[in-house]
């Protein structure tokens, strides 16, 4: 399995355009923020102290959530390429079983998603440090979130790609995912500013919970600082509007957000196992 995993990872990083385009969604969110979202938001939350630090940390959370989505989808489209070139058949004829082959794709997508999140974190960390003199928060738990996000989206991406494994369809899907991820993670427009119908849809996707999880951790210090002198419900409202917590019955806690992501993983793992015979037929013929 290692051979196939390493090959997939190498092929991904060998292609500069693939790396760039898989980050495009995340880069757009980051650049939009720099160019005008930050100014807009700072104005609308001007009653909060330390608003720059808070919002910088907030955008890092959303951008990392997008990165996890787009990079794993791009990585998983390798499945389509390998089906079209008959490489998948070639793999099946080796001593690797179909399940091990699928697992190898899953692991490589997850590893790629993880590495790219780390990469985006470093870029944003350096930018905000030099531009806004803001230090983006770091705790080891971020690594855990990056890992879980990468894995969640790798499972989902693999499930979707396995249904339509053509490179042409995949490049279209990747385009849609790249654009949609920014909305679902509530980056272009925070969840609280969307109509309630859109909010409901967002609550059914793991994107908002992945983003929330990042934001809870990243904005923790600056939130406490910013809302020190304001009433408690002000912070709650801010968290809800900005997608730092998701309002189900109550605002979700960090633990609940982990749990929801894990439930999504389990759901798609079950769905995948139910379809695995079908996928074998689709991918090998």
């Amino acid at each position, binding site marked *: 399995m*290692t*051979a*196939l995993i*390493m*090959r997939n990872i*190498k*092929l991904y990083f*060998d*292609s500069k355009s693939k790396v760039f385009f898989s980050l495009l969604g995340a880069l757009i969110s980051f650049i939009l923020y720099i160019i005008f979202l930050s100014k807009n938001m700072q104005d609308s939350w001007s009653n909060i102290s330390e608003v720059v630090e808070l919002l910088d940390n907030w955008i890092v959370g959303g951008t990392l959530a997008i990165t996890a989505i787009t990079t794993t989808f791009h990585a998983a489209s390798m499945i389509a390429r390998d089906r079209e*070139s*008959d*490489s998948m*058949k*070639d*793999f*099946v*004829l*080796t*001593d*690797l079983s179909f399940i091990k082959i699928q697992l190898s794709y899953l692991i490589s997508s997850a590893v790629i998603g993880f590495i790219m999140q780390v990469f985006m974190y470093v870029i944003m960390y350096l930018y905000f440090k030099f531009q806004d003199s803001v230090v983006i928060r770091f705790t080891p738990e971020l690594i855990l979130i990056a890992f879980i996000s990468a894995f969640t989206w790798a499972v989902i991406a693999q499930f979707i790609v396995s249904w339509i494994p053509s490179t042409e369809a995949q490049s279209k899907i990747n385009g849609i995912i790249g654009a949609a991820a920014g909305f679902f993670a509530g980056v272009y427009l925070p969840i609280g500013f969307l109509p309630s119908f859109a909010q409901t849809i967002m609550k059914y996707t793991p994107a908002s919970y992945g983003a929330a999880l990042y934001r809870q951790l990243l904005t923790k210090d600056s939130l406490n600082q910013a809302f020190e002198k304001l009433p408690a419900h002000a912070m709650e409202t801010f968290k809800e509007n900005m997608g730092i917590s998701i309002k189900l019955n109550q605002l979700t806690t960090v633990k609940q957000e982990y749990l929801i992501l894990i439930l999504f993983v389990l759901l798609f793992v079950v769905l995948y196992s139910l379809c695995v015979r079908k996928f074998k037929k689709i991918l*090998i*013929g």
Partner: protein
Amino acid sequence: MFIEVKNLVKKYKEKTVVDDVNISIDEGQFIALLGPNGAGKSTTINMITGLLSTTSGEIKIAGMKPNDKHFGHNIGVVFQQSTLDKELTVKENLKNRAAMYRNVQTIEDSLIEEFELKSILNQKYGSLSGGQKRRVDIARSLVHNPKALFLDEPSTGLDIQTRSVIWQTLDHFRKENGLTIILTTHYLEETENADFVYIIDHGKIIKADTVSNLKKNFARNILTLETKQKENVIELLNEYQDIKTDKNCLSIYVQEKEAVILVLNKVSDLIENFEYKKGTMDDIFVTLTGREIR
């Protein structure tokens, strides 16, 4: 029997693509499946190699069934299109595939020598010529030292020189290692070296025999006579029914050399020149299917 295929059938809904195919192959033999495009050759090969499920029928290679664990270890397959990664070098590609097999650590030097890969080992696979790529493809299929090699139309789009180099190498490899080779092709000349030929059309095996038997029974040897007195010659050869005429030439089918000598003796005063051409696999195909290969 090393490879045993019994009553193989593949149906897609109502359409029968492979219809009751039986094949048996001894170890070390070179077998060709010959047929026009769409005859069901690739479908047959894909079922034998376990890539495609069968509708019914039985397949065994070295005692193993396609669903058995490590069935793939016994076989190598060269696909119609290249399955290797164009972004990686030849060496990386071969090492990578080798690592997907148990107990295969290195690429054997003999493989690299035999297929003349040394000079291109560090070149990107995507930058190679068609012939070089095919040599690498075949080397890849032999990386785990399989007992049987399946080649699915391996030389489509290759020039004649490259084809002959590949076949020389494979022939040598077969004799050295006792490799069993199963080839599908619609190039008739490629089957000339085969021990046994299965001719497939519309999913059915319409003939299975050795090349020499096929030639003896189905190839028609043609004697062409060049003459200025066609009518007189035709009169002398009245026992031959099927005489074709063209300008100063007439041709007849004569199978045995004795008969040829007899004819030539009869008409020697009337002809300027003659030509005797042995039948090829092309003729066999036309005779058996009633049409040219598509």
